[in-house]
């Protein structure tokens, strides 16, 4: 940029940069603002079955499922994904994904504009649920991981409200993933040792992580 002759002296320019220094926005700040925007700009969402945003910390999952059966459900869902029930086109052939399989006869139909987003979402969800056991096992459910779970829960709800969920089987999967992710996110709010112990116990008893890794390895071999 051209230097102006009337530039302020260095000391003033430095001091001016502190003028109304904005705070950093957290995930939760962004989500709170988004809730208000969405309510106003897209009011229909709140008549849909996929839960008002205000209930994000009190997921409807609580009344229907306990922690003990949610995590095995997560494992079952992921293995279901892994054995090829999802026929999303693989646009990114060079980049393997745990969650996406070539199209088969029993594949779900996701409208084309949503395929990339859906594929990415499934990959992220799989990655998070794969890493969750070790995080929990070591007693670490850090902000980064739980923040990712929060984002994924939000994306799940957005997908539920979009044409991507028009296929009943995919909608069912999204609803189940919503339940699982809501339970994971709840760890952040509760910070309850008991919750972590229950999850750790459920994961250990069902040997979820090794089974999931085996499934991922099988898929890679198929490719």
């Amino acid at each position: 940029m051209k230097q102006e002759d009337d530039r302020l002296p260095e000391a003033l320019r430095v001091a001016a940069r502190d003028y109304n220094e904005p705070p950093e926005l957290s995930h939760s700040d962004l989500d709170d603002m988004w809730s208000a925007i969405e309510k106003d700009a897209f009011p229909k969402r709140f008549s849909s079955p996929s839960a008002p945003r205000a209930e994000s910390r009190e997921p409807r999952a609580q009344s229907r499922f306990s922690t003990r059966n949610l995590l095995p459900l997560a494992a079952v869902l992921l293995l279901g994904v892994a054995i090829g029930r999802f026929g999303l086109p693989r646009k990114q052939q060079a980049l393997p994904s745990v969650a996406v399989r070539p199209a088969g006869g029993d594949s779900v139909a996701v409208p084309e504009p949503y395929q990339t987003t859906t594929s990415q979402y499934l990959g992220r969800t799989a990655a998070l649920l794969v890493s969750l056991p070790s995080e929990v096992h070591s007693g670490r459910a850090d902000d980064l991981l739980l923040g990712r779970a929060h984002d994924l829960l939000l994306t799940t709800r957005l997908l539920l409200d979009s044409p991507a969920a028009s296929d009943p089987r995919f909608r069912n999967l999204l609803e189940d993933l919503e339940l699982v992710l809501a339970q994971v996110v709840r760890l952040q709010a509760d910070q309850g040792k008991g919750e972590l112990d229950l999850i750790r116990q459920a994961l250990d008893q069902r040997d979820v992580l090794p089974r999931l890794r085996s499934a991922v390895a099988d898929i890679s071999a198929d490719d």
Partner: protein
Amino acid sequence: MTSPAVAVEISEATPYVSREPELIARVVAGDRLAARELYDAHAPRVFRLAFRLTGESELARELTQETFIRAFAQLGRFRGESALSTWLHRVTISVVSNAMRKVKRFRARETDLDEATSMAVETRRADPDLRDKLHRAIDELPEIYRTTLVMHDVEGYTHEEIANVLGVAEGTCKSRLSVARAQLREKLAPFAKEWLE
């Protein structure tokens, strides 16, 4: 075997910028998911600009919300003649300016009511440092000069960007910046000769 780390990298493979036109079209068709993506990409900068101009977190949040509500409602009219970020910042400036006019009117009434007591307190206070004086001087600039100065000298926008956002010629933008700086020099002259040399 695919590791979780690889899967995460995959999810971030598609650059946002190349998807922006498609996202805009989807928002116009009522797609919330696309709207959220646009929001995630632009909200921090919009909030930043709103905060710089208002200095109040809660107000800046409200104005950020208002900006996106208005932007989503009007997105069908966006023709792509400027960058989406420029268009969004234009909406931001409009929303903030309207709000600040109301805030200033409200504060002016409050000042009238409290004038006697606050002035008595002011005279007993120690002088704030020059940084505070500078910030107060910026606060007191007329709105068009303050906006230009904040965008250029504080937030680092170029004259071209500011001109696009404000809908004025680049020359006008430079002229406003020059006036703003001159007013600051004048206001600070009694306090900080060494700063201005």
